[in-house]
């Protein structure tokens, strides 16, 4: 673990590997948010919410640390929370009925992860690299077999997306079809979602997997190794130290919720891959053409990416790049609008409209507002989440506006996580994106920290 490092006066001394204090706080924040997201009912109010709140507080600490000259910190807490997250994963079982071999694999992956974290923490450079790639291989394998083990999850996200992508491939407008109620009337959320309620780009990116394999979730599984490749390329471009890069890779590979996201068919794995691409190109030029184009893919994938758009614009990207980025995002929507504008708009606005329904409050959410509702019976309206995203984003931007890409990523994380914590509904998939913003924020804060590590 020791390294030989040249200090200012030319004397060689031995010291432990460290990373910048702001990057350490952001990395721990990402792991706390990820750990909280991995907790399922009925433990969300007792463990899940406190972990996410602690992660949110750590993210603010990262923002405060980023304003001061960097103080090197050890990796101890990062490894601790990595191990804790794998214990959370180990305590969970698949939420949908699955064959025995898959249930076994679901437990073996985090169990091996605990050993691999130990090897990475205590071994040399080579051992750490081997442990990291073994964790990536194990996660990739688990994710790719998930749609095979759980061919028909009982969740509306999967039914709606699968039906709409298939309709689109058959030349039927994907927002004009009504998917059957997968719950057959067994659940009342205070609203009914019968049409595809997400963005058109989701349909476009999921189409190849449906064409090739019959199920779009294979694309979500493949998004993981793609994200790892992009993260490592971004890290190398930013001259991030090997240990920071390996630890960030382990954090991605050992997320306690990743198999659940693929099983349920949430789009966030694709969003995280898009985010990784944005970080890779922005590492060269934040706010340039490639940066703007890749950034605007995020709001084109999911409606909750609102404040990050304002933060991105406030960071003064090149105006021409913004126009082209917005045009590319608009191009993913335009064909559907031309095809049938009313149905497309109704679908894209379905979630916003559903949230206006008085009964549309999920007490099983991973949020402070859900805990408040359980304790006091008071249910907040959807406005609080929107206000929190804007307010938290504005304060975080004021703190981090001079920190470039890292500042943008951490401010965006603070904005979206604030809105999830006080919104009417928030689940593991939402926080997966928040945790990823923090992870990439940590990577960007660790830019050129290679001198701190072997």
């Amino acid at each position, binding site marked *: 673990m020791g390294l030989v490092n040249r200090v200012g006066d030319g004397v060689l001394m031995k010291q432990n590997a460290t990373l910048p204090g702001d990057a350490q706080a952001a990395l721990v924040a990402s792991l706390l948010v990820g750990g909280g997201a991995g907790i399922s009912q009925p433990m969300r109010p*007792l463990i899940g919410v406190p972990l996410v709140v602690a992660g949110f507080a750590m993210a603010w600490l990262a923002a405060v640390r980023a304003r001061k000259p960097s103080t090197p910190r050890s990796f101890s807490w990062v490894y601790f929370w990595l*191990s*804790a997250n794998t214990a*959370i994963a*180990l305590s969970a079982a698949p939420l*949908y009925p699955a064959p025995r071999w898959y249930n076994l694999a679901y437990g073996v992956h985090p169990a091996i992860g605990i050993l691999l974290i130990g090897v990475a923490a205590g071994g040399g450079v080579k051992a750490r690299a081997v442990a990291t790639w073994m964790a990536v291989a194990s996660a990739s394998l688990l994710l790719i077999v998930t749609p095979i083990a759980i061919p028909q999850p009982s969740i509306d996200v999967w039914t709606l997306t699968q039906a709409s992508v298939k309709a689109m491939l058959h030349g039927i407008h994907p927002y004009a079809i009504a998917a059957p109620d997968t719950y057959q009337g067994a*659940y009342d959320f205070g609203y009914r979602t019968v049409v595809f309620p997400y963005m058109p780009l989701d349909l476009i990116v999921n189409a190849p997997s449906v064409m090739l394999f019959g199920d779009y979730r294979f694309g979500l599984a493949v998004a993981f190794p793609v994200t790892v490749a992009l993260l490592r390329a971004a890290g190398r471009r930013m001259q991030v130290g090997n240990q920071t890069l390996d630890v960030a890779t382990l954090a991605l590979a050992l997320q306690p919720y990743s198999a659940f996201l693929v099983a349920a068919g949430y789009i966030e794995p694709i969003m995280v891959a898009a985010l990784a691409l944005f970080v890779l190109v922005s590492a060269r030029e934040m706010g340039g053409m490639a940066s703007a184009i890749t950034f605007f893919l995020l709001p084109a994938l999911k409606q909750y990416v609102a404040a990050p758009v304002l933060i991105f614009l406030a960071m003064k990207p090149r105006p021409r790049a913004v126009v082209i980025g917005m045009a590319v995002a608009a191009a993913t929507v335009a064909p559907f609008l031309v095809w049938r504008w009313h149905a497309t708009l109704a679908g894209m606005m379905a979630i916003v409209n559903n949230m206006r329904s008085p009964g549309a409050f999920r007490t099983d959410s991973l949020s402070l507002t859900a805990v408040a509702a359980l304790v006091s019976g008071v249910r907040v309206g959807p406005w609080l989440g929107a206000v929190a995203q804007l307010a938290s984003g504005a304060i975080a931007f004021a703190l981090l506006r001079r920190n470039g890409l890292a500042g943008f990523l951490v401010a965006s994380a603070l904005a979206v996580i604030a809105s999830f914590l006080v919104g009417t509904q928030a689940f593991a998939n939402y926080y997966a994106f928040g945790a990823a913003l923090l992870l990439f924020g940590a990577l960007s804060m660790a830019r050129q920290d290679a001198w701190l590590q072997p």
Partner: protein
Amino acid sequence: MIRGIARSMAAAAFAGIVLFAASAIDFFAFCEQHRAWTRRQSGESLVIRSESMAVARPGDAIFLCTSQHCFDGTANCHVDLGCYCAPAELSADQVAGFLTDGKCSVDQAFPAPGDATGSCQHASCDGHIPPLARP
């Protein structure tokens, strides 16, 4: 490296203990169905459930059931009282068969969102029989 692995296992074990403790707190202090049973025993309230995300499907009846609920792998058990949505053609005994030491009776033969009488109101229930995955 051995020290690293030992530390990682210790951290995971610590997290496991915290999760186990939280699970115990949830079981002993916050189990909603046991609290419903306690309320019923003390004569505090006859209403077991008046709102829920889980609701009766077309053709379901709602059964009021007591069952034994044990803390993960231990002999620490308590009695739960809950509302279960199940196909109306099932008998109370058949529904009870899905629960541990279950005893059931029909609470709503034809549940409707407007129900304001009985123990299981507004067509809401704690879960379905046969059990469904939660959304």
